[in-house]
């Protein structure tokens, strides 16, 4: 539950609604973690977003969607891995797959500062998984080297790659799984 402080501003010099282009009449200020966040909305969007109901309203969600207006330069971007687009994000409020964070980097990065306490992870690291991944990446590369070497009849290189592969394989833990 986020408490929203509503100020209906009737002054001249109307601001534009952050979600559509209509003049904004609802101006919201929210303090989260000692950071001040501001949003300007028109009457319709304020109603639609449930801003008037202080119990069920998240400014973070709203900011998320506001930063995804179709006129932003990244509007045409698609995630290569899963085909997710920015308008999909606007509709669902969630991303399509982990790779989307790379594809929509330009959109995600600016909003992290408002949404979180910091912009860089400082917590737990999946150490075992990362080590395993680096081993597998190395194996893939060695196997590629081996095929190449055999193809171009560089047998000494091939023998070296083969030895290295069997060496690396001995350090490999149980098979990892993913739904790729």
């Amino acid at each position, binding site marked *: 539950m986020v408490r929203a402080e509503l100020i209906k501003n009737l002054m001249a010099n109307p601001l534009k609604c952050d979600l559509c282009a209509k003049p904004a009449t609802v101006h919201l200020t929210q303090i989260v*973690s000692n950071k001040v966040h501001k949003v300007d909305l028109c009457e319709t969007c304020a109603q639609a977003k449930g801003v008037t109901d202080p119990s069920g309203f998240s400014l973070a969600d709203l900011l998320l969607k506001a930063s995804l207006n179709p006129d932003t330069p990244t509007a045409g971007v698609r995630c290569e891995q899963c085909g997710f687009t920015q308008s999909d994000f606007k509709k669902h409020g969630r991303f399509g*797959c982990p790779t989307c964070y790379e594809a929509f980097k330009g959109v995600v990065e600016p909003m992290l500062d408002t949404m979180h306490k910091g912009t860089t992870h400082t917590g*737990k690291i999946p150490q075992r998984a990362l080590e395993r991944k680096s081993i597998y990446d190395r194996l893939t590369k060695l196997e590629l080297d081996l095929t190449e070497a055999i193809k171009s009849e560089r047998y000494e290189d091939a023998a070296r790659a083969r030895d290295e592969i069997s060496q690396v394989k001995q350090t490999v833990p149980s098979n990892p799984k993913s739904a790729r």
Partner: protein
Amino acid sequence: MTIASLIDSPSELTDAASSKTAIVLMTRIRLARNLSGTAFPGWAKPAQREEILRICREAVAATSPMKRSLNITVGELSELEKQILVERHLISRELSGAKGGAGVVISKDQAFSVMVNEEDHLRIQVLRSGFQLKKAWNAITELDSALEDHLDYAFTPTLGYLTACPTNLGTAMRASAMMHLPALVISNQMEKVVRAVNQLGMVVRGLFGEGSDASGSIFQISNQTTLGESEGEIIKRLHTVLQSIIEHELNAREKLLEADAGKLFDKVGRAFGILQNSHLLSSGEAMNLLSLIRLGIDLAVFPDASRSVIDRLFIEAQPGHLQHAQKGEFDPAQRDLLRAARLRSEFANFVHPNFSFSTNGKN
């Protein structure tokens, strides 16, 4: 383990209450995890969801805390069973509404539950009765690391664990405590507390999470942000906030006693009378009455040992548990009759209130 035997066996939540759980009823931590290179549940195709479900259920079942666990798909659960699991905080409402390719693994003691294909591929949760953030963290990080042996998590060094919603990035951890705050509610201070807690980057919700009301004066307080701080820092900060809420609640109780002890004891005594004699009780009213009895226990009107009875009744008065106990499905009006009957019989043998020791404001 089957769902029927799980429902009928004692749970961490309903049977482990001790006097230490006076204000913090229960501590909960959840971690969101996703498989690398795999579409999030909300975007994955049905066949892919099934595949994710299969892989995750298998991996979770292979960890040591999940030995002899209940490992079940949402489709295999009846509506009533889902409701009971929601009332025990073992699955979310969102998961209970999932159409296909979703499931849950629940440990035998019901302290751990792992939801598969909720908003993220994995939602790992640990429940501990009382105020035990550190213990809960140690337990959950162990399970999480054990899962790492079987699954490749989506993770980047800068953004941390990648989640379907960017509001969960980083640690992807939500730590929360369920608190019983009757005096702050009676003295109309909750709004003030909620505002102060929000400013400290924490969120206050009702008993059953987002959008639920705070019947029974029970609130959930949890961290709002997940990126930019380590799990330890978040837990430490939450601990400080919870500690200060506990102090405020205790102060509020003292003030109520000082100002008009008679008025407060009247509420407790009347609650007892209604629970012993009423014939129609909605779950909201039952929660509020039980909350007053619980406050009475904290004020030494009833013995300490009764607290675990009340904590169990908090859960058993919920619609799902009530219908399960009566072995049938009933409409809300019938449920109110059954609930009152259940509580009448429970309170017929309850220790009678003793108001004579309570006047020195013991908490």
